[in-house]
């Protein structure tokens, strides 16, 4: 768009009204969800005064505690491993001409994005059920493996995007000044990639924290994460405790995503 057209040309009658309605409709349920987490009463719809009791109750609930810790542990490990693997893969597949197998590597890395979660979940359930019977081993390793796999594309995309916008002048200059390959990588390439790596890590962490479907199918007994715990609770009488947990999850996620946007928009 070279010039701004007069405003009236861009107006389509009714569109602004629908758009405003849409924004209001998007935020209303979330605002109400958050508001009623502070409700003094048991109701999710009738306000009985401000109180933090549901937060205290959630924090004191041992199942919530262990699910929260398990979620953080799982997301921490999975996102870290995925980010390291994705960084290596991004280095390998960017800033190069076509090489044999490049398309295949790219397709494989993005494979988890293409397949519905429920399908991957079922396939993993089948394979892991078999491994669990064969080895008798039921630790968190299955969840970590599954989460790492589907986190890789989410970590890979921002790192790759960052690498593609980086020009190689500094790296060439360093190489001209007799820096070794490792030195160039350690002192130039890696610091320049860092915003992409941090963005990738954040994204992978959020994706792992939010996952319900694959976790639900892969977890062994007693391995509830926060989302699967919440899903299980929905079958019972729901109290604002679920709102309190949701509120914490929403704000933690929004915080990480804001960092993600901030890091990735500062890259230029």
């Amino acid at each position, binding site marked *: 768009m070279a010039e701004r057209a*007069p405003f009236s*040309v*861009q*107006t*389509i*009658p009714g*569109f602004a009204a*629908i*758009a*405003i309605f*849409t*924004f209001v409709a*998007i935020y209303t*349920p*979330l605002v*109400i969800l958050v508001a009623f987490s502070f409700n003094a009463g048991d109701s*999710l*719809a009738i306000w009985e005064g401000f109180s933090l009791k549901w937060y205290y109750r959630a924090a004191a609930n041992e199942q919530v505690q262990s699910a929260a810790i398990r979620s953080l542990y799982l997301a921490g490990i999975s996102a870290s*491993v995925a980010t390291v*693997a994705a960084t290596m*893969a991004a280095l*390998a*597949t960017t*800033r190069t001409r076509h*090489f044999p*197998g*490049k*398309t295949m590597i790219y397709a*494989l*890395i993005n*494979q988890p*994005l*293409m*397949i*519905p*979660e*429920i*399908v*991957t979940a*079922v*396939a*993993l359930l*089948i*394979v892991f059920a078999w491994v669990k019977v064969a080895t008798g081993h039921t630790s968190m390793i299955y969840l970590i*493996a*599954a989460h790492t*796999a589907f986190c890789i594309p989410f970590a890979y*995309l921002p790192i790759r*995007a960052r690498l593609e916008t980086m020009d*190689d002048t500094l790296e060439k200059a360093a190489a001209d000044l007799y820096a070794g390959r490792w030195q160039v990588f350690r002192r130039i390439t890696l610091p320049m990639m860092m915003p992409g790596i941090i963005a990738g890590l954040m994204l992978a962490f959020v*994706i792992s*924290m939010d996952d319900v479907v694959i976790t639900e199918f892969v977890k062994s007994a007693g391995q509830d994460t926060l*989302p699967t715990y*919440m*899903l299980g609770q*929905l079958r019972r009488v729901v109290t604002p405790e679920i709102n309190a947990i949701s509120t914490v*999850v*929403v704000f933690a996620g929004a915080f990480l*995503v804001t960092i993600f*946007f901030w890091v990735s928009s500062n890259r230029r």
Partner: protein
Amino acid sequence: MAYVTPESEALPLDAPAEPGALEAEHSSRDVRQRWFLSLPSILIIFFFAAGPLSVMLLYSFLTPGNYSGVKWEFSTDAWSSILMQRDIFDDTLQWADAHLSIFWRSLSLSMITTALTLIFGLPTAWFISTRPPGRRELWLFLMTVPSWTNLLVRTIAVQEMIRAEGVINNVLVFVGIVDEPVQMMFTNFAIGLGMTYVYLPLMVLPIYAAVEKLDKRLLEACYDLYASRWQAFYRVILPLVKPGIIAGSILVFVPCLGAYVVPRVLGGGKNLMFGNLIELQFGAGRNWPLGASLSFTLMVIVMVALIFYIRVTSQERKDG
């Protein structure tokens, strides 16, 4: 994962070589190094995402075990019972009505959801792109923030709005529009509403990308030539935004088909969709081979839709 992030659209499947590619030498050593660096990702995804799909395919040709799992006997029953069932009395094949009604619910709700997200998404995308340049990013951010909050939490938020003792019913009863709460939970309506709510940003973002590229001077030209508002919309805007609409429709339609969380929470036990039917086979249904064949079917449908999506978006890149 049915998520497709905005970044991923911008990436062609096979990026053309950049003029400033770091090393021009393409010795076999370089290629080997690149393969070696990709190896951790390749192995993790092969073993824990892509590979298991072939085991799943294998399982779809086995016989269900007595309690769960499978017996290692070849059978194609899992595939035929997707659509047909054997009558227990006279052993004839009949349409599996229960399955068909679930497929129909999945298909129709996905289409309705796609239509609804388009009805709300197109004006929203247009609205965002006509904000002053500095504000656009903020509006876009406001649109994307909820889509990054937990899908389950957003579904719970919808559930709390439409429950019998939820906010909407309270308001309706208070205002006097209805005498007693309207049953919205555990209906097809609830699933459609929930999916529209959670997948709306997937429609807005690609349409926004298309609207953003639209040269607004064309509209000026159009009005100079005495087009009516409707003509401008129908003859100029819509054709130019069409690739975005197609992309957005596929991005919404695909996760709707594979939806599991939304129908489970909002649809309850009676209003199953494809994803819930699959889950059922691994729970109460105890028919793993059928679960595997259903799951494989879903995957193929989604792959076809996504290949179509990639063709549409790469076409758009060529044209743009």
